[in-house]
């Protein structure tokens, strides 16, 4: 059981580091999806450990939410790309104090 939780933690960390260091909005977004899937792994592992189905149901909810997030996220990124011809998060720097 601990192996699955460890794997989920490793995936979550890879995703978090990716969000922090990558510059392309699409890849940042993919890293967030990786973190969501790492969480799903944790949910089903804990579900197995506790012997109830709550965690597996949660994984389904997370998948639906992730799908909705893709719709919203990609539409925002595409509209930015149309305006600026770039998806680099470093170029999104017009708002500054």
């Amino acid at each position, binding site marked *: 059981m601990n192996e699955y939780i460890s794997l989920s933690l490793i995936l979550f960390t890879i995703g978090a580091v990716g969000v922090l260091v990558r510059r392309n909005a699409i890849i940042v977004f993919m890293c967030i999806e990786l973190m969501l899937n790492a969480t799903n792994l944790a*949910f089903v592992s804990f579900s197995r450990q506790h012997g109830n189905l709550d965690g597996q149901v949660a994984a389904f909810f997370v998948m639906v939410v992730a799908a909705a997030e893709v719709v*919203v996220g990609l539409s925002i990124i595409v509209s930015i790309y149309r305006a600026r011809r770039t998806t680099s998060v470093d170029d999104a720097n017009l708002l500054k104090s």
Partner: protein
Amino acid sequence: MLTSFLEADLPMIEAPEIEYALLAPLFIVTGVAVLGVLVEAFWPRSSRFLVQTVLAVLGIVAALVDTVVVYTDLDRVDSALKARGQVAGEGALSVDGPGVVTWGLLLVFGLLSMLLFAERRLEGGLSAFTGRAADAPGSASEAEAVKMRIEHSEIFPLAMFALVGMMLFATANDLLTMFVALEVLSLPLYLLCGLARRRRLLSQEAALKYFLLGAFSSVFFLYGIALAYGYAGSFELSAIDTAVTNRTGSENMLLAAIALIAVGLLFKIGAAPFHAWTPDVYQGAPTPVTAFMAAGTKTAAFIALTRVFYVAFGGSQWDWRPTIVAIAIITMFLGSVVAVSQTDVKRMLAYSSIAHAGFLLVGFVGVYAGVAGSDRVTSVSSILFYLAAYGLASIGAFAVVTLVRDSGGETTHLSKWAGLGKTSPMLAGSFAIFMLSFAGIPLTGGFIGKWGVFSAAYSGGFWWLVIVGVLMSALAAYFYVRVIVLMFFTEPVGDGPTVAVPSLLTTVVIVVAVVGTLGLGILPGPVLDLAQHAGAFVR
């Protein structure tokens, strides 16, 4: 063969029991949002904006009336603490005093925001939202959309979905419902942020930043939920409370769960060090959306934060209170100090909202639930009152921001606001009242709100934190008063902004906000009683 299989000894699936009467406000707002999507598909374009506005406003008013009915029907709970309400929807929601009062607050904020959304006189008959979001800024097709007077009336269903999410978020009784509610409230707001008519590059950038950071923080929240589930074996707040009180699982896992859940919720309320998105998003988003976000998201997220930490993690409050105290101090300090150096009104209001998150955390960390026979204000009711005062004043302040304009749209640079009190005393006067309420000057709602949270923190044994809080509010008062001095005691600049004449909609919003802010300050009794009467969370 098939029928025999169906008649075999399969376990019965029992239909869930849903308390429809109790949850009706949620169903009304959801129904109106879904109806709005249908109107979007089938109603002719020419009158769609009007129909959507009427639908949204009527829906919110109906839900508000029903909320009052639900509140008066809530059952008393027999427990040591004063509480009313019950767990509903198979344990998914907790329709209790504080939750239903929050519904009321959110619906009032939603109603005022919808009036701002519907304002069309300021842009010459068009709304403050872009006509066709798919067009690139400055492109020929964008100009064509303006010429054809195309408008996005989807903003109303989107806002209604966000409102449902907020209401769910404030009453969620299990962590999974809370996560879904968080996403339901956030996703429409990400889109609404990117739909400004003017300064579209800034608006899209705000949407991108809000989306990426919001999604990032909600994943942390979700991992915290996974760990809490691993610790307790259930998503229900009361089951987690049992596990925490009995210390059944691994201590480290519990602490990690609390920390990660706190990250997600503190991000939503805009507390330091998770506040970085606030100024950018508040500045870039269309101002009506900023008003809606500032009041609504903060209210819903703060009640959700309070519910999770009081109900589920109340048993380990000595683990999280020191950290929250530190975060409260950092948040108050950072919000107040950085606001001083801002030159943009919307950014300044954003930092002010960060500072207010800090003051709210002071009341929150008191964890004062009251004792029998005492009328001292509890943490929950002080937070409710503070949110009411803060929400009204911020919607009013952002409504004023929409009116100060020049040829390029809203003039948000503070230097342009110099001498506004001489050219339009009424508008500047109402802005001054909102500033005074933010600063916590007596006879405004902000004063009673600050008194409430400080009193709750004092009752909870944090007298020294109250002293820090009072010092911080003195510091924060500086930049609010600075704006008032700028408006009333500075000569107007040559090419100053013009104050647009709004339609009845924005006027009503500003008048309601002024009356509410002063009313909460001069006659706080009824609302304060309501907040006290709401009692504790039902688990």
